């Protein structure tokens, strides 16, 4: 099975104050890795979900996400935005952005990995370790370890 996240899908120290821009930067990485087949189509799907209600959550995280026909494998794009970008959360801007991409349809079994990821997101320790990770390799390592456990 394709790994959920690889170093190419990690953007550290992104400087942007526009959530559309951040989402696009991450989605481009997914497209470059061959995980998203139609960038515009995928972004439209993410935007559709975001339009229902912004996905920012307390603790400085934003989780744009979509199940989309343009996704080939469950994937996570991760960005750190040190200056913060408003994601519609009540308690302030997001510094950690997780772009979660799931294929439309297909069996549900391979989506359990995303379920496990989502569960980790609410843990402060998980978020702290991602905030302080020195490089993309470490981010991948932390996510892979936590989600597998």
């Amino acid at each position, binding site marked *: 099975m394709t790994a959920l996240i690889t170093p190419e899908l990690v953007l550290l120290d992104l400087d942007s104050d526009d959530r559309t821009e951040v989402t696009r930067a991450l989605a481009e990485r997914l497209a470059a890795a061959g995980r998203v087949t139609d960038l515009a189509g995928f972004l439209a799907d993410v935007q559709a979900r975001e339009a229902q209600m912004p996905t920012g959550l307390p603790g400085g995280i934003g*989780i744009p996400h*979509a199940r989309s026909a343009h996704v080939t494998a469950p994937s996570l794009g991760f960005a750190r935005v040190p200056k913060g970008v408003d994601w519609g959360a009540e308690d302030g801007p997001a510094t950690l952005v997780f772009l979660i991409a799931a294929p439309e349809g297909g069996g549900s*079994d391979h989506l359990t990995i995303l379920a*496990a990821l989502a569960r980790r997101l609410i843990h402060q320790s998980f978020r702290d370790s991602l905030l302080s990770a020195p490089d993309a390799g470490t981010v991948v390592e932390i996510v892979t370890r936590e989600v597998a456990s």
Partner: protein
Amino acid sequence: MKFVAVTSCPTGIAHTYMAAEALEQAGRAAGHEIQVETQGAAGANPLPPEVIAAADAVIFGVDVEVRDRYRFEGKPILQVPVKKAISDAAAIIEQAAELARTAPAPAAGAGAPSGPALASKVTGDAGVGTRIRQWLMTGVSYMIPFVAAGGILIALSFMLAQIVAGKQGAIDVTKVPLATVATNFNALDGMHWAALLFQVGAASFAFLVPALAGFIAFAIADRPGIVPGFVGGSLSVTVGAGFLGGMAAGFVGGFIALWIARRNVPKSVRGVMPVVVIPLVSTLLTGAIMLLVLGRPLKWVSDELTRGLNGMSGANLIILGVLLGLMMAFDMGGPVNKVAYTFATTGLAAVGTATDATQLKVMAAVMAAGMTPPLGLALATRLRPSLFSEPERENGAAAWLLGASFITEGAIPFAAIDPLRVIPSLMVGSGITGGMVMAFGSTLRAPHGGLWVTPLIGGIFGYLVAIVVGTVITALVVVSLKQLGRSAPETAENEALVAA
């Protein structure tokens, strides 16, 4: 304490699981036991029934409808948006604990069902009468849009037909076949537009009784009730049992579905219960009951009534008019109403070109008596709005037009909520109107159309006087019966039902 929770979100890949984790963490941190069912994209993990049974309270952290919600009926339920469950889990656990402490003990035979919209307000000790009213109210509130849409479309169709095709228009429009509208539509032909309105309206009307039955059953058994209710309601129309048969179908279908859903089944079967077993078995049983139990007696009743009417041909015309009026208002589209109406239209076909035949008077009496029920109720909702619930008052506004168009069904929502008071009132008004039309000797050679076939009515003044008198009497009787038999709490409960 013990809690169970369900989480779900539109996409089913992120918030569902975050909320589950947040509630589990917060619950355990506060020293409670908690199990969460995540209704997301990554497969289902249904809560075991015994765990639900043991729970002190239920938490729904959901942005989409909870699947198989009926499993939690009778439990104190706290429902919050999924995002709130993530960001405020600790506070929600505290609220749920408070809810569990203050909730009344479940009644014997726990799991008191109620209208789904009321699910979080379920009173475990609600009386049988209250619950029946809640079920009927649920069915009626979902039925009213079908009545309004269908009835108003048909009324508009009659109006338009009369404008473009003259006094025969409202008769001719119903004879334009559906195929003409569908394949030969001519946008420049006004009658085609009228026929289009009529066909769409008739299609909407065809759902009236099924929707009533389906949502009564839904209120009783939640989602499993919908299929047997709808199918039973549709069969009620097929066998000619009308809305009273539909109400019966709603109760039968609802309780059968509820009974099956409550069976304890082996785990291997549990997965296919909601999608296969419950709909299959409940629909078959409900349908069989509607056809086998109702079919024959209904046929017998209508045969006997028809024979009785035919035997009266030499009798006093005024008595015949009163009788036809009573029948028109008794079940509004049901077997008794249909006998009276068919009696009139059959006579119409036999009468030929005569201008003063008895058959034409019969037709006039039948149509007038079929117009007063909606008109009388419309008037009653204006005279004493406080005696009616909000959906009834809104339906009352549409009922003016429906009554004027001889669409007796406009009265069904009122009759379904409170049959014992409403139906007798309608019969009094319609009986008087039927008798008066006969006495005045008004005639009519159109089988339908209401006020839109006025040019075809002979003796129009007496005809209209009879309708006005019947309307006023209907309204007065409804208002007094409702005031007599109604205690203040019931009125308050009406308001509560509406607010829910």
